[in-house]
Each structure stands twice: as C-alpha cells, then as structure tokens.
C-alpha cells in the first residue's frame, strides 16, 4: 500500500453537557493511506461523524492525537445536506470555498468551472439551487468541495437525504469523480451496501463509545463501479461479514 496520509492514535473524546460527561470515542486507532477510499460504518449514534469533526479540526480530542503526513494536507468536507446558498448561482456556490480561502485566482476559477463542465453541470451554471433536483444539488456540493482541491475528502453520509434511485446513481457518479481526480476519501455511512460498493477498506466501529472493531479490506478491482460491484457474487459475502461484525 502507498504512504500514510493520516493517523489517528489512541484518540478519545468526551462530550460535556450540564447533565454530565458522555464518552463518544474511546481509544481509536486508524490509519488512512494516500489514494484509498475508506468507509466507516457503525451503529447509529456511535460517533462516526464525530471522527470526521476531529479530523477536520472542528473539535479537539480529549486524549490521543490526529496527525497528518504533512501540515499542508488540505481537507474537503461534504455534509449530509448540500447547504447550497440560495442567493448564489450554481457557479458562485461552487466558488464559495475558494473565495473564503482567498484563493480565487483565474486559474483556480477556470479549474472549478471545468469540473462543473466535466460532470455535466455546465448548462446549470447560472441556475439558482432551488431550480435543481436533490441529486444535482448534492453533486454541486461535491464540486464545491473538490474546487478547493482537497487532498483528503471527508464524506459525511452524503447520500442519505436522497431517494434510493438518485442515491445509487449519484454514488456511482461520485465514485467515478473521486477516482478520476485521484482523491483520498473517508466515507461515513450507516448503509453497509454503500460502504461495500464504494470503499477499498471498511472500518467497522463499535457502539458508543466508538472504537475500531474490525478493518475489512474489500477486494474488488477499483475499475468496477459501485453498481457493477453490487452485481458481483462476493458483494453479499462482504455485506454479511460486516453485518455480523456490527451485530456481534
């Protein structure tokens, strides 16, 4: 496998409320390698999203460390909801990240617009988000995340708000985009099929406080799309294995 990009070592995190203290993560060890697609599955409410917040730096661990291979690893975060800004056009939504980070050069802008074009959204450039379907909105949100050229993509249940059809199609497309742009990605999901159909490795988390229960490598060829993977006979074996890990 290629070189390490991110390392979580003995990470613990406790939430404080007036009522007391809740352990959300307990002694979590996890390494993410460059270019891989890692999926995290776990029982709902186990603190999967919290792990992304820790990686993103939105929260600090109570104990342990979150270390990147280099200090200038750039992160992109894709949320469950698209959070497109209604008063901006699709194009200006896509440029939001660059704008906020003061990196809106002509080059960067051209690159972002090329992404829109490559992924079939060019004719919607001047549309407002309200005019787009849920799946298209989420695609715009992905391109907004890609526009800042992240080295590591954090995907926080990005398909869970969509209907089943859109979900399958979009996960197929997002997978292709991420592979083609050679990004490293961490996908948090509660959907086992989604994890198996997209990831190189699936990390199964325990119930709260979350820790790593099992790492399951998925042996499909990366050239197979998620939809094609779903048709492979081994797909169900992976599914069953993860199911058992989750319910053991």
């Amino acid at each position, binding site marked *: 496998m290629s070189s390490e990009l991110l390392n979580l070592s003995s990470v613990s995190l406790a939430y404080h409320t007036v009522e007391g203290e809740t352990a959300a993560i307990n002694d979590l060890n996890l390494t993410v390698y460059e270019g891989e697609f890692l999926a995290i599955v776990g029982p709902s409410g186990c603190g999967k999203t919290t792990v992304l917040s820790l990686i993103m730096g*939105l929260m600090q661990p109570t104990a342990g460390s979150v270390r990147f291979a280099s200090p200038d690893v750039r*992160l992109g975060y894709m*949320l469950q909801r698209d959070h497109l*800004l209604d*008063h901006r056009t699709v194009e200006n939504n896509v440029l*939001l*990240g660059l704008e*906020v980070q003061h990196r809106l050069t002509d080059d960067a802008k051209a690159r972002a617009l090329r992404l829109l074009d490559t992924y079939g959204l060019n004719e919607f450039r001047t549309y407002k988000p309200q005019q787009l379907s849920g799946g298209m909105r989420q695609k715009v949100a992905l391109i907004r995340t890609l526009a*800042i050229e992240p080295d590591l993509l954090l995907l926080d249940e990005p398909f869970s708000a969509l209907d089943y059809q859109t979900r399958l199609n979009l996960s197929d497309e997002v997978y292709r985009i991420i592979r083609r742009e050679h990004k490293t990605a961490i996908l948090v999901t509660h959907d086992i099929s989604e994890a198996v159909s997209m990831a190189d490795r699936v990390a199964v988390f325990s119930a709260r406080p979350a820790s790593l229960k099992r790492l399951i490598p998925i042996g499909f060829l990366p050239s197979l799309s998620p939809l094609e993977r779903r048709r492979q006979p081994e797909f169900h074996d992976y599914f069953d294995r993860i199911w058992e890990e989750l319910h053991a």
Partner: protein
Amino acid sequence: MKPTAVSEAHARYLKTIRRNTRLVRLARIGILIGFVLLWELGADLRWFDPFILSSPSRILATVVRLYSDGSLWLHIGTTLLETVLGFLLGTLLGALFAVLLWWLPRLNRILDPYLVVLNALPKIALGPVLIVWFGAGMTSIVVMGVLVSLVVTTVTVLNGFLAATDEKQLLMRTLGATKLQIFTKVVLPSGIPDLISALKISVGMSWVGVIVGEYLVSKAGLGYLIVYGGQVFKLDLVMASVMILCVLAALMYYAVALLEKKVRK
C-alpha cells in the same frame, strides 16, 4: 405578460383563472363603491346624524377647503416627514443593533430579557416622558416613531440572522471561513428577506408612533387635525384626516412591497 394557451383545455383553464381574478377585483371595487354610496345615502336620508358620522360629500368638501386655504400640504407634509424619518431611523438603528447582537452572542444573551420586555411594552406609554426629554415639538414625535419601529426591527432581523447562522455555520466552518465572512457571505444575504418583512411591519408601526405623538404634542399634521377636530366637534375634519391617512399608509406600504419585489428578483 399574458400566457398563451398550449391546448384547448389549457385555454379553458386560463379563462377560469382570468375570470376568478376579474371577479375578485370587481368585488373589491364593488365593496368600496357600495360603502361610499350607502354612507352618502344614509346621511342624505337622515338614517343617522351626519354631524356625528359625517358623509363622503362632507369629507370631500373638507379636503377641498383644506386644499384651498393651503393647509392640506402642510399637514400631510408634516406627518409624512415625521413618519419617513421615524421609519428610516428606526429600521436603520434596529438593523444595526441586530448586527451587533449577532456579532456578540454573549451580549445578546445578557440583553435578551430586556429586549423581551421592551418588545412587549407599549412604547406609546413613554410619550409623556419623551415630551419632557425632547421638548414639545417634532423631535419628540420622530423619536416616538423611531422607538415604536426600532425594537420590532431588531427582534425580527436578529431572528432571521440567527436562523441563517444555525443552518450554514457548519458548512462555512468546514471551508475555513472567518466570522466576518460568515456574516457577509451567508448571514447578511439570507437575512435580506427578514429585513424586508421587518420593513413591512415597521412602516405600519411608525405611523402608529407618529400619530400618537401628534395626539400628545403638535401644531400641525394629520394627528393634530384629528385631535383638534375631535375637540371642537368637527367630525368632518376627523374623518377627512383618517381617509388621507389611509391613502398615505397604503401608498407607503406598497412602496415597501415594490422594493421587496425588486430585491427578491
């Protein structure tokens, strides 16, 4: 912008819509004309005493008299100036105050109960105090107009800001945005509809403030005419002033609504 029918059924559909619109418009005008006619008729036939209830013709005569002795524009101008000043200042200060409270959440938390009380308090109760502070003149009336629209603007705009913040804060933080960026790129633009709703509320509020202010202390203005007319039992004058007030308030409201249409586009 007349939509063209794409089929016969669509044409029928469009026709129904047009007929309904026409019906509503006709009914509205009908009510107005019917009301005026009935009022005039009732006064002529002595169903009631026109000295107490006035009548459309007497109101018209009063307006014409005010116009010919030159005082009509003085009174309208005075009230309009006071209201526009009160409205603009109240909205501006209210919006600025909302920005301040958004920026400093702790200040917002500290001041919250005071804001609630100020919002609940009938501001016109402060009238006598204002006269003592600002003198028996136009300043007191404008301050009253400001006061009445200020608090409601602050509360409405602040709530709009906070809703927008809850919604998009996480996204902006993942992009690494500063507080100023969150404000200028998200909170302010998505707060504009709330700002406009606040304008619509406070334009009415300013009229309340100014008219009450004029009741308490004034030498000119529509509120002055109403009080004066009531005191000397010239009900024609009172009714004429109220009618003018109706027209002015409606015009100002529509001006704001027009602005809204422009901004929403």
